[in-house]
Structure formats: C-alpha cells, structure tokens
C-alpha cells in the first residue's frame, strides 16, 4: 500500500471533522505523531509564521487500523489535507494536465494565479512578508537566502513528501538550501544562446558571437540584468557574481559596446527568434526546446558557451503564511512523482531534478548534452548568488545607465 493510496482512503473520509478524525486516530494509538501535525495545521490559519514540527512521525503499522482493512503497510500517518490550494506561478509553466490530475486525485481545488514577471512574483510574495496568501510558489533558488532570513518560507515536512526519494543525489542537499529544508527543486536550466543555422553558418561556441558586428540588428539579449552581466563577465574572465567596482565597470563597458548591435533586450525572444526577427538570441535551455517545438530542430542550434556559463533552478516553496500547508505538501509530493515530473518537463522543456522521471522524459531532451549536460559539464557551470542590496544596487545603477 503506497502513501498515495493511503491518502485516497483518508480523502474518502473527508467528511470527518478534525475532532472525529483525531479521536479515531487517538483510539488507535497514533495520536502522538499526528497531533503535532494537526496542531501545526490548525494554527497556520491564525498564526501563519509557526513552523510545523520537523520530527517525522514514527512509521509503522499502527495507522493501518485507521483506514480500511486492506491498508496493511501505510508507511506514514497522514493528516487531513485542506480542500483548497493556492498556487502562484507563470502561466503554462507546468505540465498541461498536471493541475487537473492533482484535483482529480485528491479532490483539492487548485487556484492557479499568474504574475506578469519575476519582479511581480517577488513583490507579491514579500508584500506581507509571508507569501501574500499563497500556499505554493516557484521562485528562482537565488531568493532562498533572503526568504529564509526573512522568515518568508515554511520548513518543508519531509515526512509528508515520500517522493523526495526521487530527487537525484545531486539535488538532495543543494547549496542554496542544505537538505532542502525550506524548498524543493523544480526545474533547472543552463544559459547560452540559440542561432539560426540557415542564417549563420558554422558551429558557434563563444559568447563573443553575441557581440559580432556581422549580426548587427539581428541579436537579442535577455532582459535580465544578472544574465547580461554574466555574459559579459565570462568573456572578460570575471566572475558573474563579482561585486568589485572595477569589474562591474569593465562589464558595463563591454555591454555598452554591444548595445548598438542589439535589436532588443527582451523576454519575448522565443517568439521573436522563431518569427525571424533575429538570427541569434541569448536564452535559457528550455527556451530552445520551445523554439524547436515551434520551428523544428533544423532551424535552431543552441550552445552553452565555452567561456563558461550559468546554471540555475527554481524551487517550490510553501510560504510561512500558507493557509493550506498540508495540501501544499501534497502538491510538492505530487510534482515529484516520476510520471508527473516527466510530464512537466516534456511540456515545458526544462529538465527536472527527478531521477524517477528520467526514463519517462522524451529522449531528445535527456540525450541532448546541451539540455541535459553530463555531470562534469554541469559542475563547471556557475550559479548566480544572491546579492546584498548595496551590491545589487551597483548592478542596477549600471544596468539603468546602459538601458537609458
């Protein structure tokens, strides 16, 4: 009997009140473990900053008595999930049917809200300092340092997410959040550039191609300060996380040199590139998959430049103010399921950190070294670090001067 089946059984009894449920659980002797969770769950409405108990309930056969007799080996006692779940994410940044399948499976109604851009997402999550009323959101992992120190994120209760075992060993304890205490990785990507081989011949490898005057007016850069600075930094042999004023001045000079060659700094590069407005564009690995979906693989090539590049990932978090934390844990667990995770990747094109999903992902993604680089290649890529406000300001001031 799997965790999921046990949960379905619980849901079949959703008409139980919490008190009745608790009474039954207590009667069968599993109360000690469950009470903590239920109390945490009950409190979350009134005092949302409370962090749930992290001690995992003792697994054992005791809960079997709670559910129907055929549940003989439920590994974990399961608290009653809430009936609703509020998700804040990009429109379409998830498998096409993931939400429906989740609703069907758990009988939880998902409210899936969008934001205009990453800044809109962060301002929503930080507006009240505890997540703006959402249960789940997907920020870039770079935000974790600030979110944890601000108390914006809730600790993840690993006992409620058995599918964490599906995470590949490399993702069991990422640098931005050791042991995935406050977050669970979702998609990861590399940064590089795509070009149209019909317009630009040869195998491009260097960041310098985005500075090539031969392509004047046919180049896009991402409208992203950190990514643009990184592209220049790699050419200059500097760190993309530099905070040195002289480094940043050199980077700005490099970008000033490039600006007259550019058609646009944009986030709409996939449509613009496939529509034929440019021949070469700075982009993320998942964008390239979108380009192939649109235009066929013979019309686009992608490279992770030889000077080095960026890797990044986003994470699922449960904000400290989440009104439905149990359902949020279920959502995370559901998205770590091998099949669901593979569906998400196949739809969006970004690789997930999920080993169980690997055999189910389209082979042209998993077998392409640019979309799924070997571990030794990945190890060479650099993650963008969170910048202190004063350092970020150094970037912003130069970025504004560049754009004005």
């Amino acid at each position: 009997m799997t965790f999921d089946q046990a949960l379905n059984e619980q849901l079949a009894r959703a008409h139980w009140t919490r008190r009745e449920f608790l009474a039954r659980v207590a009667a069968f002797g599993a109360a000690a473990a469950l009470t903590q969770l239920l109390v945490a769950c009950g409190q979350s409405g009134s005092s949302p900053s409370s962090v749930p108990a992290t001690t995992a309930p003792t697994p054992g056969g005791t809960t079997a008595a709670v559910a129907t007799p055929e549940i003989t080996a439920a590994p974990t006692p399961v608290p009653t999930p809430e009936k609703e779940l509020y998700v804040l994410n990009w429109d379409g940044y998830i498998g096409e049917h993931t939400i429906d399948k989740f609703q069907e499976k758990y009988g939880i109604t998902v409210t899936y809200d969008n934001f205009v851009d990453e800044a809109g997402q962060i301002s929503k999550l930080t507006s009240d300092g505890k997540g703006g009323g959402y249960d789940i959101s997907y920020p870039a992992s770079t935000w974790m340092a600030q979110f944890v120190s601000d108390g914006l994120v809730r600790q993840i209760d690993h006992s409620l997410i058995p599918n964490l075992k599906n995470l590949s060993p490399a993702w069991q304890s990422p640098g931005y959040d050791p042991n995935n205490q406050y977050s669970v990785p979702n998609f990861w990507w590399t940064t590089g550039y795509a070009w149209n081989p019909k317009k630009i011949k040869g195998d491009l490898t260097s960041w310098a191609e985005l500075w090539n005057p031969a392509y004047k007016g046919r180049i896009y850069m991402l409208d992203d300060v950190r990514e643009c600075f990184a592209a220049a930094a790699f050419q200059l042999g500097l760190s993309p996380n530099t905070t040195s004023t002289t480094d940043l001045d050199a980077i700005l000079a490099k970008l000033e040199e490039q600006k007259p060659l550019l058609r646009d700094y944009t986030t709409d590069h996939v449509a613009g590139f496939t529509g034929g407005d440019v021949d070469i564009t700075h982009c993320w690995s998942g964008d390239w998959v979108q380009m192939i979906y649109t235009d066929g693989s013979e019309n686009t090539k992608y490279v992770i430049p030889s000077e080095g590049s960026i890797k990044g990932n986003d994470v699922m978090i449960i904000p400290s103010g989440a009104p439905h934390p149990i359902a949020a844990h279920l959502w995370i667990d559901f998205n770590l399921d091998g099949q669901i995770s593979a569906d998400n990747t196949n739809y969006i094109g970004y690789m997930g950190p999920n080993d169980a999903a690997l055999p189910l992902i389209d082979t042209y993604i998993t077998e392409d070294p640019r979309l799924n680089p070997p571990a030794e290649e990945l190890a060479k890529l650099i993650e963008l670090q969170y910048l202190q406000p004063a350092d970020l300001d150094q970037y912003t001031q130069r970025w504004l001067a560049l754009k004005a």
Partner: protein
Amino acid sequence: MTTAVAPSDEGRRRGLGAAILVLPGVVWLGVFFLFPLALIAVISLGAVDPSSHITLANPNLDNYGNALRTEYLPAFGRSIYYSVMTTVLSLGIGYPVAYWISRYGGRRKILLLILVMLPFWTSYLIRTYAWMIILRDNGVVNSLLLQLGFISEPLRLLNTDLSVILGMTYGFLPFAILPLYVSIDRLDHSLVQAGRDLYASGRGAFLHVTLPLTMPGLIAAGLLTFIPALGDYVTPDVLGGAQTNTIANIVQTIFLSGRDWPAGSALGFLLMAVTIAGTLLALRSLRSEVIGT
C-alpha cells in the same frame, strides 16, 4: 472647500449642491489616491537597508539627486519625443475623423463612435501583439512590400522609434477622437457659415472660426494623449527595442529589477513634475500658435 461663495440663499443652496455632487468623488480620491500617494512621497525620502527592507531612519533627498543623473537624459528625451509625436499624430488623425463623424455621420454617428472604441474592448496586449505580427521582418507589411517588389530586403519596422510611436498613436487615438467629437459636434454651424461668408474660403473659416471654437476639445484631446503617453512603458517595452527605453521604463526597472522603491518613487515623482511642466508648456504654445494670443 464646499462653502458657498455668497451667504445668500442661492449661495447656500449651491454650496449644498456642490457638497452633494463633488464631495463623494473628492473624498474617494483623497482616501484611495492622495493618501497612498503621500505614503509613497514619504518612502521616496527613505532608503533600502542591508536586509532589503525600506528604512526611513535617515530621511533625505538623495534619491532625487540620483534621479537627476545625466545618464537618464536620453531616456527623458525619448519620453518627450514619443509623447509629442503621438499627440501631434493623434490630433492630426483624430480631428478630421471626428469632424467627418460629426458632420456627415448623420443617423450613424453613434455607431461610428462605437466603432472607434470597439477595438479597445479587447486586450491592449493582444492588439499590441497583433501589431508585432504586422510589423515584424516576416510580417504582413514586409511580405506585402516584398511581393509588390517595392523592397528586396525586409525593412526593420519593429523595435524602432517608428513602431513605438505607431503603437502609442494607435493606443491613444480613440481617447483623442472622443473629446474632439464632443466639441466639434456642438459647434454652431451658422457661425461657420458666417465665417465662410466673411473669409470667403473654407480654409479661412476653418482657421478663424471652427478651430478656435473647438479649441477646448483639442486641448482635452491633446492632454488625454500627451499625459498617458509620457507615462506609458508597456508600448516601448513590447514594440520598442534596445534603443527605445523611456523614463517610464527606467522607473519600472528601478522598482522591479532593482527592488529600490525609494529611488523608483523619487524618479516617478520627477516624471510627474516633467509631465505637469510639459502639459503647461503644451497648453501655452497651443494657445499662442492657434489662437494667436
């Protein structure tokens, strides 16, 4: 604010009338507009502390000093250039059309006005994206010109000054046509007729009678175009390119990528000051050029 001008019965009644008519709107704007704006004015004196929170520990005008950096001048220039061009084009296109509807629309006047507004009942973004389809290198205009043999290489139309001005004009034209229509439609035609007799030319009558009489509509239309154009950042963002950022785009970037609300607020207030100055200047030059005072 709502006390009567004269202590007569009439005056008192008017005071009461003004209170009933004006007070609800004024109170609403006071609570939901002026008061929040004052909060932002206070924030513009603050700074961002090392933990990324806004602090007002040491209120000062540094943000305003920074906002006046010479690096921002090109963006200020572009904002003004785009807004002026958009206003001129909107009035230039809107006036004849409003005139045509008013004079020759007959029983279909209302329908014609509705048609002007109709495109604006769909999302602005969708319409802007449609413009991208029209203007891009493989787009409708370029394909047509190539087919007809007028050009051999696609013209770069998208991501240019031209596409930004076109997009803004498209976006603000109806807001010019409506007030122009209202003022042209109430024009007394016997006056225009008298003007024709007097000046013996359609042009003379237009310049000396029609235009001055419809000046309030022109001014309203101009303001309804110029002011929002100056603050528009979506059009330069979507239809513009690497070289078309306006000061509104800069404000946006400070707030969003820089996450520096105090600095963004300061530059935003500076933009408001420029808008007010520009509005006054435009009003004055319009009056002196057209009315000749």
